[in-house]
């Protein structure tokens, strides 16, 4: 078997660098979106509002029970049509389109947000009740206590898990190839089909993912130990 590493590096390399830009962009926005969605869902789920609780639980179930890839397709293809149809009812003709990248960011925000909300929720529930009581006894309201003394330690205790999610999200960006986001997999696939350097192309692709994810997971382990020490 003849392997052409040099040609692969010189042709695929620059393209993949651009692809990394896309991956970083989508991951950063998607991750921040996920944190916000996760926090909001978690707060809603620990509130004593029964109806809200039921609705959010159902929503989280719905998202966790369907594959991320299907959600990307849904946001990219179906949601614009639904919006058009809905606006059509009011006699407004729209032709909404959601770009593939934006679909990716939205999909990640919602999907990861649901998983993160469970992490944050259980972290909130496992904060020592004494923290809440101490706040109440000083004269803080329940809401102030939640935001001031319960959520911050809960978030802090969730950081190691978030680290894992970040690494998972980076790898999951490869799903976006299916809705034509020019990320790493799609670029590699195009290159491989044009040059037939299949072995080289996909090996390089795998290595690129490894080079990004391994240091990040190491970092999250270090962070976890550091946080534990501070108690």
């Amino acid at each position, binding site marked *: 078997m003849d392997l052409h590493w040099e040609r692969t590096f010189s042709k695929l390399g620059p393209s993949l660098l651009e692809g990394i830009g896309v991956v970083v962009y989508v991951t950063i926005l998607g991750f921040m979106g996920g944190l916000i969605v996760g926090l909001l869902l978690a707060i809603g789920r620990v509130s004593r509002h029964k109806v809200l609780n039921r609705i959010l639980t159902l929503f989280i179930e719905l998202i966790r029970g369907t594959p991320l890839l299907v959600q990307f397709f849904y946001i990219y293809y179906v949601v614009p049509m639904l919006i058009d149809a809905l606006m059509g009812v009011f006699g407004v003709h729209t032709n909404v389109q959601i770009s593939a990248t934006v679909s990716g960011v939205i999909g990640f925000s919602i999907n990861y947000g649901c998983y993160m909300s469970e992490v944050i929720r259980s972290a909130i529930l496992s904060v020592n009740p004494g923290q809440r*009581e*101490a706040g109440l006894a000083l004269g803080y309201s329940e809401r102030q206590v939640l935001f001031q003394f319960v959520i911050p330690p809960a978030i802090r205790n969730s950081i190691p898990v978030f680290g894992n999610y970040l690494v998972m999200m980076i790898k999951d960006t490869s799903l976006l190839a299916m809705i034509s986001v020019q990320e790493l997999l799609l670029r590699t696939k195009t290159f491989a089909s044009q040059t037939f350097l299949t072995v080289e192309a996909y090996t390089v692709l795998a290595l690129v993912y490894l080079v990004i994810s391994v240091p990040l997971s190491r970092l999250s382990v270090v962070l976890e130990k550091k946080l534990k020490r501070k108690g």
Partner: protein
Amino acid sequence: MAMLEIKNLSKSFGDLQVLRDINLCVEKGQVVVIIGPSGSGKSTMLRCVNLLEKPSGGEILYQGEDIMHLGKSVKNYRKRVGMVFQRFNLFGLHTVLENVMLAPVQLNKADKTQARERALDLLDKVGLKAKADVYPHTLSGGQQQRVAIARALAMDPEMLLFDEPTSALDPELVGDVLEVMKKLAGEGMTMLVVTHEMGFAREVADRVIFMDEGYVVEDGAPEVIFTNPKNERTRAFLSRVLHK
């Protein structure tokens, strides 16, 4: 008018009745110590006083005012009545100084510089000024509890509740905390204290209350309770704890 007056207070958790027909009074400037075996309802009673537990029945009057139906203004009442917990419950993500000055700044809109000065004074009072900038987890239990006392004092409470403040401490650390409490008592602070420290009760209390199985069994001056208790159960309890 009494500072705090509790009438026919009862509390149940489901079928379990923990407080039955509690009646007691705390006058301004008094130190009232509650003693009794574990599970006698002492802590629950104390937690009812600042409504961390919702009483099932009866009345609690604070300076003549009913506090059981305050709704949202319960937080204004709690600002006036400080509480010190068995497990300190300091805010772990905040420094010692922040623990003490946070509530005055955030809830009473106190000036930050003044609140800081005051917090340092209070830390000085409990002997921990040098620890102002460290985080609570680096302190011993006794030190943490003294910070917790300073934190409660920072809101200028009219009355302080102590829920077994020394029960979670190593024996050699108990003394420092009791010293601070004695100092407060000497300054005329109104205090309601649940404790197992009989020495403290005997020396500092104006009145001692003995509780058992959810009842107030005996209520009187410490010298009477400790030397000549009227009730058989008080006598049995004291002989158990004093002759150990």
